[in-house]
């Protein structure tokens, strides 16, 4: 568990762009047995999607500039491709972020509370967050069905719009699941967890507020 302490130093902050090494380690699920294998595999898939999404985003945008300058030709589906990639990154990323306890939160007041209060509060936070994530998973699936029925297409690529949203319900669902697991973990274990395998981040001796 000790590596988790190190990992979590920066995490309960509101930093959005701090340089971090959290994502460089290989994620290993804390779940028991087969569930753990699945969880680890999903995490692996998410991280590949994140990295590939960002690299493709860069490649696509650069290709469009090169096309315009060198070949006098803009790539017309470039913008739509970027849109697809952004949705992919966002929804693969929210559950990845939940798994690693990286969602932005304002923890100043929370951190000032005694741990006897923090623990139940964390359970409540995780459960409420899970409820809304699962709710959004449901309604985004509904939304996709509605779009499917209407048949709207992307103007340049001429592919149905509902396809590009498929990641949304999956991402919301996986995120909701992560928060449920976080709540359970906090109920079972003595320590307080930000996510299934990230311990809460402050070292009380160094930070006095």
């Amino acid at each position, binding site marked *: 568990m000790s590596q988790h302490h190190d990992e979590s130093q920066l995490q309960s902050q509101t930093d959005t762009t701090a340089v971090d090494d959290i994502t460089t380690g290989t994620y290993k699920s804390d779940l028991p047995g087969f569930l753990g294998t699945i969880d680890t595999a999903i995490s692996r898939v998410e991280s590949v999607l994140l990295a590939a999404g960002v690299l493709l985003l860069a490649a696509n945008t650069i290709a469009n500039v090169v096309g315009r300058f060198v070949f006098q030709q*803009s790539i017309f589906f*470039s913008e*739509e491709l970027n849109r697809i990639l952004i949705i992919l990154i966002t929804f693969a990323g929210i559950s990845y972020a939940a798994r690693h306890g990286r969602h932005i939160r304002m923890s100043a007041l929370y951190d000032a509370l005694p741990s006897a209060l923090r623990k139940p509060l964390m359970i409540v936070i995780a459960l409420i967050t899970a409820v809304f994530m699962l709710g959004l998973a449901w309604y985004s699936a509904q939304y996709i069905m*509605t779009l499917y029925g209407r048949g709207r*297409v992307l103007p340049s690529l001429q592919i149905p719009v509902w396809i590009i949203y498929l990641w949304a319900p999956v991402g919301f669902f996986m995120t909701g699941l992560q928060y449920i697991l976080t709540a359970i973990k906090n109920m079972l274990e003595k320590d307080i967890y930000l996510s299934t395998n990230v311990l809460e981040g402050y070292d009380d001796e160094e930070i006095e507020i």
Partner: protein
Amino acid sequence: ETWRYAFEEAMTDVQGVYAQKFKEEVEANTDHEIQLFPFGTLGESADIMEQAQAGILQFVDQSPGFTGALIPEAQVFFVPYLLPQDHETLVDFFRTSVAINEMFPELYAQQGLELLKMFPEGEVCMTTQEPVHSPADLNEVKVRVMTNPLLVESYRAFGATPTPLPWGEVYGALQTGIIQGQENPTFWIESTKMYEVSPVITCIGHNNFTTATMANKDFFDGLSEEDQQAIQNAADAAFDHIVEYQKGLHEESLEKIREAGGEDVQINILSEEERQPFMEAATDVEEEFIGMTGESGQQILDQMKEDLAQAQGG
């Protein structure tokens, strides 16, 4: 009851003027109220359309060019030279066209929409850095167009390099030279000061930006007959109002541009003869359109041409 009506432009633009007249008429003749939501307040064009389909909005104004993502045939309004170039004939065309008044309402109804009115917003002209008199003058000129396949095909056929760009960046991109031109109705060129950064305005008569107002069909069908009639009347009255409003708007906008832009501005209305090569390029776009819409698109296109001949003949 309060009804909600969203459109794609600001309150002072053509769609806003139409909406305000419509609101005034409905409120005078029924005991309902209308709340107007101009551009951006409830989302982009595609968003407000979906909201109208979901019944959150009772009325929406969406240009057929955008509706093309939902009803492919609506893209016919991007095929160049399908609409009359002269104002009186144009108005006549919108009043009498079988395609507009009979065929499109059916297509819209399939998407849960009651088409109330299609109306022209104004002649589309292009603004560039150098004078344009023939397709050759557009060689290697990067013209910003909306990301619509037919518009892209049109400008390609006109000889230019169509370039997609978010609208917010167009002014800056013209200034810095990422692109050299763009196209829009003249009132829009005037109000957004596009002439400051692309002072040569060329009208080739290829299009008149068309837009359409519609109601959610379930909502409309659920209304009393009097209310339905009042809404239809309001749409007609707003159409008359907009036609009157537009009479001379194009010339007035050009005049304002000439005044504000001074020496730099050059306005070229191409002659029939100069327009000829551009008109010939339109066949490529027709093919693209039929490729996208098949049989049904062919029917609409043929009908539009017939309506055009009718309006010009009459």
